[in-house]
């Protein structure tokens, strides 16, 4: 046993002994004072003063945190609707901060003011209708305002017509990374389904070509298995193979059925889709994002754009927004500069290279498995020209050809 360990035990024991000694002292002192565990004027006074201080300490703590950590909170929104959301946020936050700053000190202030004293008698009052109507009416009016304002913003942000004029991008979630699919020339995303998955078609895009390749592949598997079955002697293995054949035939059937349920036009529109691992967005251009997941629920969270939407297997969801600040512009934000500097300082302290720069990111924000904390994708917002060049490059060197 090493010395360190013994030392820790000794310290531990000392702490425990001290603790019990302190308790004994308290007990002895209260015996001496013949205190029968009753509150006294003195204890009321001490606690009253402490409560009074608490009210203001809470306020001070609040302001301290704002001063200390304010720059860490999300900076100016980088999207059009984000401005609306932030205005609503500031209004609501302003309101609740005021209420917080009034009610807590009042609560603790009353506690101090009316602390118990032996010769005092409380004022008997059971209710006061006028007062109660008043303080029911005030929150009602204020809340009505908030509800109306909030719903107006919500209506704007989620309006189904928003997608008009936007470029369509699919964001595809799986444990534990993101993939994006751009709609290509026709600005139409082809249909996708897990049944069409293949290593060369990770998002399961439904196109004629894909259908052909995969269906032939399945047919081939079935044929090979059938041949194998003929020569196999072992009854156990025969069973495995024939089960596999049945499964593949069933699969083939479903596959076909799904294929036939997709219109030809839609199958065509998938052909020019571009699958990439990084999101590039043109500034000031509306983006209509579609979300899909292949396994569990994920959530595509893009905090700087005030955008978030769940990705649910079996369900297609959508969020429309317009980025308004390029990555370069955002890097010039003073709070971001400060935050990046701080991050680099910390990284260097850990012996890593402190050369990170700000980037927008898309984070997973719905618990989705053990690497949930590390499921991210970089978002780069660039000018329209840069975007066009990038997209063209991607189309040429795209991850998956032969769509």
């Amino acid at each position, binding site marked *: 046993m090493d010395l360190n360990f013994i030392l820790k035990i000794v310290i531990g024991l000392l702490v425990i002994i001290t603790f019990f000694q302190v308790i004994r002292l308290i007990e002895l002192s209260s015996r001496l004072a013949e205190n*029968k565990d009753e509150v006294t004027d003195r204890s009321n006074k001490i606690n009253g003063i402490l409560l009074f201080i608490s009210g203001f300490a809470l306020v001070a*703590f609040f302001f301290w*945190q704002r001063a200390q*950590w304010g720059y*860490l909170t999300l900076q100016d929104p980088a999207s059009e609707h984000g401005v609306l959301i932030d205005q609503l946020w500031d209004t609501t936050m302003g309101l609740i901060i005021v209420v*917080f700053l009034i009610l807590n000190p009042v609560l603790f202030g009353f506690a101090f003011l009316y602390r118990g004293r032996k010769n005092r008698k409380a004022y008997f009052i059971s209710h006061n209708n006028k007062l109660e109507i008043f303080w*029911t009416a005030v929150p009602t009016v204020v809340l009505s305002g908030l509800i109306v304002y909030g*719903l107006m913003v919500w209506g704007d942000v989620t309006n189904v017509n928003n997608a008009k004029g936007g470029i369509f991008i699919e964001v595809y979630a799986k444990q534990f990374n993101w993939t994006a699919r751009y709609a290509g020339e026709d600005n139409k995303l082809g249909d996708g389904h897990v049944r069409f998955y293949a290593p060369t078609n990770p998002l399961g895009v439904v196109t004629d070509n894909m259908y052909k390749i995969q269906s032939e592949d399945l047919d081939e598997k079935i044929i090979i298995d059938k041949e194998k079955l003929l020569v196999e002697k072992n009854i156990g293995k025969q069973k495995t193979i024939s089960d596999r054949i049945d499964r593949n035939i069933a699969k083939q059937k479903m596959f076909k059925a799904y294929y036939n349920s997709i219109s030809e036009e839609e199958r065509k529109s998938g052909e020019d889709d571009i699958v990439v691992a990084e999101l590039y967005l043109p500034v000031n251009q509306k983006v209509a994002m579609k979300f899909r997941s292949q396994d569990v629920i994920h959530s595509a969270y893009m905090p700087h754009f005030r955008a978030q939407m769940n990705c649910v*297997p*079996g369900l297609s969801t959508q969020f429309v927004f317009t980025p308004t600040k390029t990555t370069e512009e955002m890097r010039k934000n003073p709070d971001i500069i400060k935050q990046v500097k701080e991050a680099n300082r910390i990284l260097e302290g850990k012996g890593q290279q402190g050369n990170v720069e700000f980037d927008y990111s898309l984070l997973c924000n719905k618990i989705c498995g053990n690497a949930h904390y590390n499921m991210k994708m970089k978002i780069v917002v660039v000018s329209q020209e840069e975007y066009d060049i990038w997209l063209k490059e991607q189309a040429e060197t795209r991850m998956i050809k032969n769509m």
Partner: protein
Amino acid sequence: MGHHHKENFFSKYIFSMDHKMIAKQFLLTGMFMGVVAMVLSALFRMQLANPGSKNPILEFLLGSNYVTEAGAMTPDAYLALVTIHGTIMVFFVLTGGLSGTFANLLIPLQLGARDMASGFMNMLSYWFFFLSSLIMIASFFVTGGPASAGWTIYPPLSAMELAIDGSGLGMDLWLISMTLFIVSSLLGGLNYIVTILNLRTKGMSMTRMPLTMWAIFVTAILGVLSFPVLLSAALLLVFDRTMGTSFYLSDIMLAENGIMQVLAHDGGSPVLFQHLFWFLGHPEVYIVLLPALGITSEIIATNSRKPIFGYRAMIGSIFAIGFLSFIVWGHHMFITGMNPFLGSVFVFTTLLIAIPSAIKVFNYIATLWRGNLQFTPAMLFSIALVSTFITGGLTGLILGDSALDINVHDTYFVVAHFHIVMGLSAIFGMLAGVYHWYPRMYGRLMNLKLGYVHFWGTFICAYGTFFPMHFLGMAGLPRRYYDNTAYPMFESLISINEVVSFFAITGAIIQVIFFFNFFYSMYRGTKSPQNPWKSNTLEWTAPVEHIHGNWPGEIPTVHRWAYDYSKPGKKEDFVPQNVPLSKGEKEH
């Protein structure tokens, strides 16, 4: 009167049907579960303050499956700990522990009944609770670890072992445990409702009941209406897990041994589960909160030596909150892709809840006004509860507003919000209740000075732990993250996390004082007088020593409401409910 059958050790302490003993059983089990959940949170806070550092305590407590080769917590372990922490805190401590203790102790004593309507059901309720607690804890020691899909166990994650290790045997145990728990709470809840409706003593009209009774009454109704829905949600999940049905599953593909497999499930909806879950889940937060508010109402009135302000408004708010809590569940689902119009409806109902909540706060503050406040530890915790209810409730206005929720949904802002408004408020209410009714349970007083030290330590650490989390959330940090160093931009949040973890761990240690006080006072505390707080309610008219049937002779008759404190024209500053009105005295 009182039934005097022969008692042995088992019938007195273990399979007791006496409500007072059952209350103590619930309390001790709840406290034990509280320690477990608190230790879990301290462990994962260590990970968050020092990402990836060795965690020998974790290894010692739970075994080497929970740590990496280097001795640090694994990501799976993190999610397991968070999930069970949340589950235990919400259900086992603040539902079973809180309601189980105070409903059982107080309903017969405050209403003047010999016992609960059915002592047997009451006993069963406890033993189901006990069994479900055991199973929940046992799930830490099975292959794959306990359920790890968050306390909300959303499928598909919770439906397939391929998606996360904890969704194997651990999830089975979670579901079994929760099923037993639901049975327990239904048995309890029905009993509470029936007792309150039928067994009130003479003169104890509904509108003379103390507010604790009203709170427990509405809580029990909420539980009886909403827990069965969780049970059905859980059952359907069991079917999906074991029988290949597709209630919640559709179009899923997962890697098995590196090969992609499309699962046979088709046509289900994961969102359906969320609707069912939150149909319980939201009322559940009021199941946790209302008893605490009821306890506080009683304690604040008693120790202000004043009537509770706006008794009828308080009852009205309890009912309004109870009713509204059933039609707001969608605020947990604004960004599931639900129809935006439906979202709007939930915004409307959600923000309405702020009105009865505000009324309650104003009434508490008005009760303090011109009172003669006696700062017992119970009173201090009650005042702290009002403060956390204000602070935490206010951020609800942000989360309930769908447009704002887009950006803070599932971030630490939410963690801050619900810990303050539900976690802290309910825990404070529970602690207040323990300090206040300890003499009624054990015949002795808890040590006052230790109580003060405990209160101030807890109060400071509570705000220190949870207030800064708002800033984490506003910085965009998602909850249920094992480690935030995967994002360079989050590196700088470490300064917040250190503050949080410091207060969290200190706060956990300070609870030792409470436990010491609790057990120490059981044997060495000052003997309690019959009515130590000079309270009006009936429980203080029963003898200090516990007897079956609660009152040796006749049950007292009630002549007035519970809040005649400092009534003009009375010598003492309290008039117990069983004192007849004097000539010409108005009720209030």
